[in-house]
Structures are given as C-alpha cells and as structure tokens.
C-alpha cells in the first residue's frame, strides 16, 4: 500500500486462516480434532494437484512466478508424481491411528 487503507481493508485467506486455525482461545470441545494436522504446506501441494484453476480463482497463483515450475522446464506428469508422493509422506507423518468415533488423543500445542 502507498497510503493507509480504510478500516476493514480486505484481509487475505492466509490472514484469516492463520488466526482461526492457529490463534484464538483453545477450549477442548467434545469432538476432538487436531487442527495442526492441516499443514498449510500440504494444502499448497494439494492445490497444485487438485485444481490450478480453482486456486487461481482464489487469488493463489504463486507457481506462475516460480521458475522451477515453469512448463517446458519440467515434465508435469513427473512433477505430479513427485508431489503426490510428498503428500503421502506428509499424511503418513501426521496421520492419527484412531479411525473410529471414539475421542482421539488430546491435540498437541506446538511452537
């Protein structure tokens, strides 16, 4: 910005997500969910695989400025393979063992 915005200037999705996912009061509800499983980096990778158009709609198009992902320099299919396996790694690393409705272990606070 070159001069101050009015109050209530549009905040980005990243601004909202970092507050509602990572800030705010933590009260243990009856339904246990670990918000820290949602690694924002994983979201980025999923975006790339799922829908480039959708992400662009949301104003997320960083890869268009990232020279390592330019079309013509990398094989897209190979890129997708590499990213899918990275997502699988990240999911395996954060996956909780319980798959049933019973309460899961207490969410851990990190940082």
């Amino acid at each position, binding site marked *: *910005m070159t001069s101050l915005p009015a*109050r209530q200037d549009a905040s980005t*999705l*990243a601004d909202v997500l970092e507050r*509602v996912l990572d800030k705010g009061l*933590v009260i243990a509800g009856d*339904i246990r969910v670990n*918000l820290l499983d*949602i690694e924002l980096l994983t979201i980025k990778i999923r975006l790339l695989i799922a829908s480039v158009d959708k992400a662009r709609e949301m104003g997320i198009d960083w890869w268009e400025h990232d020279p390592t992902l330019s079309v013509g320099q990398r094989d897209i299919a190979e890129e997708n393979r590499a990213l899918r396996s990275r997502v699988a790694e990240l999911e395996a690393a954060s996956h909780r063992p319980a798959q049933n*409705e019973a309460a899961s272990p207490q969410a851990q606070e990190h940082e």
Partner: protein
Amino acid sequence: MRTTATYLYAITRPISSAEVSELRGVGGTAVRVIAHREIAGLVSTVELSDFAEQALAAHLEDLDWLARTAREHDEVVRAAARIATTMPLRMATVCLDDDAVHTRLETLSHSAVAVLSELDGCDEWGVKMFAIGPPPSTEGTTAEPSTGTAYLTQRRRQLAHRDSTRETAAHDAGAAFARLSKVAVASRQHRPQDQRLSGAEHPMVLNAAFLVTRQDEDAFRAVMTDLVEQSPPDAFALTGPWPPYSFVPSEDL
C-alpha cells in the same frame, strides 16, 4: 439419537440472542447466545453429519470447505466484537450440546472475565512488512554468463544482494515493530506467512499483531502512515480492525 451438536465461536461480555439474530454462521446456521453469569458463549447448532469427528476431519482436508468455514467463523466473531468485548475461539470447537457449553463456561468464567477486562475497548491490527529491495544493479549481469566461473560470480552477486536486502529489511522490521509497539497495549510477532501459500510477490519480514485501544487508533495509524511514507510502495500491509485472536491465552483456560 443425537443428530446435532453445539459449535462455539467466541466468549463475550453478556449480549442477547436478539443482538445476533441476523447473523449466519458456519454452514449458514443461526447464531445464538448461551448466557452464563458474567460471560456469554456465541454458538450455533450444527449437524453431526458435518461436525462429528470423522466428518469434520474430512472437511478440514477440503480447502474449499475450510476456506468457507474459516471465513464464516471469522465473520461471526467480527460481528460479536462490534457488539461487545470478544474472546475469539479457534475454529472447530464443538460440544455435544448446550449443557456441555455451560459446563465449559462455568469452568473458565473467572479467568475469562479477567481476560475480557484486558481486551475492553481494544482492537487487533495486523501489520505485515515485505522485503522490497532496489533491483540488483545490472552491471555485469546483462550478458549471459559464458563460462562456469562467470555464472558462479553472477550467482554469488545475486545471493549477496538478496542477503543484504533481507538484512536491511530485518533491521527495518525490528524498528517498525518497536515504533508501533509504543502506541499499542500489547504486540506479538507471528511466523511470516509462507510466500508460496500467500502468493506474495516479496518475502515477508514481519508478521505482527498489535492490540490498540480505540482512543489510540489515530496515533497508531499516524505511526503507520509515517512508516509507509518512508518505505518503498507496498512494503507494508495493514489489516484490521480484527477481533483479538492474537491476544487471548493460547493454553486452555
């Protein structure tokens, strides 16, 4: 058989359900108030088909649902903050029913009142700062390097330029944070946002939140204006007012 649960958005000073009757919360649900002594819980009744543990976990992996629900949660918290002093909750706090919410409110009633007193009359403001250095000098870089050595020299120069830009920016970020903190009740530095997620053109060197009294808002904005005028265009991004997400205790009350 139980099919619904109670989603909790925030804890506030007492307000009435009538004051929030126009609001729509997560999934378009109605918003209402659970009053408890000197505090209130802002809630919606939600379907367990969406918010039971497995369903919720699946939804949270879906960026469309997450983005929409995050905004819906924030909108309710913002609306509450315009009416009464508000302690925002992290999203996805779901209790089995209203009685379970009452139980939580009873447990944290005393500490909540203490925190609300600190937040009375204040808003949160977000200040992000980016490293926008002058473009690297073109001396020696216009020609394509023809040898490995020339390439390495060029690369080293680019990295040194990038490092010195970042060093300067880090110093400026510290100075900006210090100046703004002087007109705030409290301040926090958060992790800079991942450039690859935010899509920002330049690296973020400051991601700060300030708790500012409404009387001091003009003074805060005056300092911001000064910082903006002394910096390259788009070095700063100001957002707010926010409900005070960054200024409520992060451990369970």
